[in-house]
């Protein structure tokens, strides 16, 4: 087990190096360079040359890359072009909001998705199953930012139950979490249903039934436990989706999260901010996937063998 964990952690390192390289390349293939693109309208050529030198953009690209990685590894992601704040500091300020949003959305998704998925599987090919399928497909096909706007219109404007946008009290988080959560509830329902159906066809469930166990025990004790195993992976796979989902949700509701920071960076053409948030998000994603892989091997020892 220990060896597996170490091996899995080490496997993340080349991926992170690749991620930093791609991020660096993307930010440096821009026609012109970051400084002239960002300051074009605000500064004369001499000032631009001076800023370039200050930030170290006059050095060869490989040197800049190594410098970038070395600093990033120590948590220094440079300073914002827009307000000269440290990018790591900004991420530290904005990230907790995204975490709160993502976690509450995930909790909502699991609370809704697992029971409905089980129900749909147990009542396979009935009206309950069909309506679950139609509802989940509809939710999966609707753009999350559009659902967010509709929710704003209905609950914020028409009914006036909740604030339309902003951040501060718990009531500001309810609508965003529900919007993002409902989308993932749909995915979780589908996966739970599929996983449950899979398990219900297994030999050991038939054996359990054959030896005369009550249906209740067969389902809750034998089937459900095993059906939950693949869900761990699904939850891990959703981390990336949750992050992109929260970028869009935050944009609609004006929540000061990582998504909002990225969008602000794009608006101001603030290279260090974009570079920093992209790198940071990818890091979170890699860590989350590693954690999921490891926990998966804890739940199901067969994984470690292969």
């Amino acid at each position: 087990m220990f060896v597996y964990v170490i091996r899995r952690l080490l496997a993340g390192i080349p991926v992170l190096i690749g991620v930093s390289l791609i991020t660096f390349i993307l930010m440096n293939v821009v026609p012109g360079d970051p400084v002239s693109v960002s300051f074009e309208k605000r500064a004369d050529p001499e000032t631009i040359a001076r800023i370039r030198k200050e930030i170290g953009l006059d050095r060869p690209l490989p040197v800049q890359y190594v410098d970038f990685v070395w600093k990033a590894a120590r948590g220094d992601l440079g300073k914002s072009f827009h307000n000269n704040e440290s990018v790591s500091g900004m991420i530290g300020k904005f990230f907790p909001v995204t975490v709160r949003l993502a976690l509450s959305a995930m909790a909502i998704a699991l609370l809704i998705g697992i029971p409905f998925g089980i129900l749909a599987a147990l009542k396979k090919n009935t009206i309950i199953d069909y309506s679950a399928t139609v509802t989940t497909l509809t939710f999966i096909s609707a753009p999350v930012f559009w659902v967010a706007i509709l929710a704003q219109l209905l609950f914020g404007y028409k009914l006036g139950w909740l604030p339309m946008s902003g951040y501060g009290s718990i009531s500001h988080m309810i609508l965003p979490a529900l919007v993002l959560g409902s989308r993932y509830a749909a995915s979780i329902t589908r996966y739970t249903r599929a996983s449950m159906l899979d398990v219900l066809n297994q030999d050991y469930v038939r054996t359990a039934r054959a030896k005369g166990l009550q249906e209740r025990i067969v389902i809750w004790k034998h089937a459900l436990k095993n059906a939950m195993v693949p869900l761990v992976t699904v939850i891990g796979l959703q981390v990336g989706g949750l992050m992109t989902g929260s970028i869009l949700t935050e944009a609609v509701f004006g929540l000061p999260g990582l998504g909002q920071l990225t969008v602000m960076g794009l608006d101001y053409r603030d290279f260090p901010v974009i570079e920093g948030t992209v790198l940071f998000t990818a890091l979170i994603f890699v860590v989350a996937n590693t954690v999921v892989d490891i926990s998966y091997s804890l739940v199901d020892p067969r994984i470690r063998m292969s």
Partner: protein
Amino acid sequence: MAAVVKAPPTSEAEFKTKYTAWSRLKKHKGALLGLCVIVALLLIAIFAPALYTIDPNKQELFVRNAKPGAPFPESFGPGNYLLGSDHLGRDLFSRLLAGSRVSLLVGFVAQMMVLSLGVPLGAIAGYYGGITDKLIMRVADVMFAFPDLLFAMAIMFALGPGLINLFIALGFVSWASMARLVRAQVLQLKERDFVEAARAAGAPNWWVIVRHILPNALGPIIVSVTLGVPGAIMSEASLSFLGLGVQPPTATWGSMIFEGRSWIRHAPMLSVVPGVAIMITVLAFNLLGDGLRDALDPRSNKKV
């Protein structure tokens, strides 16, 4: 008493109707519905210019946010705003039709990019193995480390807005999962006897891949493309919503929702209608994809 030996009941025609993918797909009502909707959408997108009630980019600032059914201003000539007008007096109905062209074009071309990158790379990795395989799959791992939309955002930021750049960004973001899929298929198929036979007969490697292996991997590839189109459409809408897609004034469903957002209290149609269009399109492709998965791969009845 002589035993009556009946001829096998399945003539070739009977066998075909019973077991081909098409006959299985025909039984899948959802998939058929999806297919019909997609055909209808394609026709609308192709013939959109003939269906426009007015040039979708024509402005008339005196009739901003007009109600559905309001008559066109004098500058437009005779006619009505079937679905109302937007904040620049443009006709929502015509813009909606114009948006279908962008969405479907992006959906299909992005998947072409995914195919042309993912299939060869996946096939090469799976067939040759060794260091080539390691190299390609490590790059794919890195691609997987970025959340899709964020990666597409970064690429669009670097390349600038525009349709061609959208194709590049969306193709580049999703080729890795296609490569993984094809590689897994190739790994399985290359051990089979018919591949062995082709190689023993002296067929060159590329011929074995193109003629013997890939045709047998077609099923999962088709399913993946069908389910990839709605993904690309959704990404395009999200990018346009964030202002990173196609340049204005081109109408796209995502940018229409973004523009309509500011007028949500007075003219909710402006953002509601394009969203419905996205939802119907994506739903149709998802339904067809699900049906195709069941039809092309009878072993897996997973409806995920």
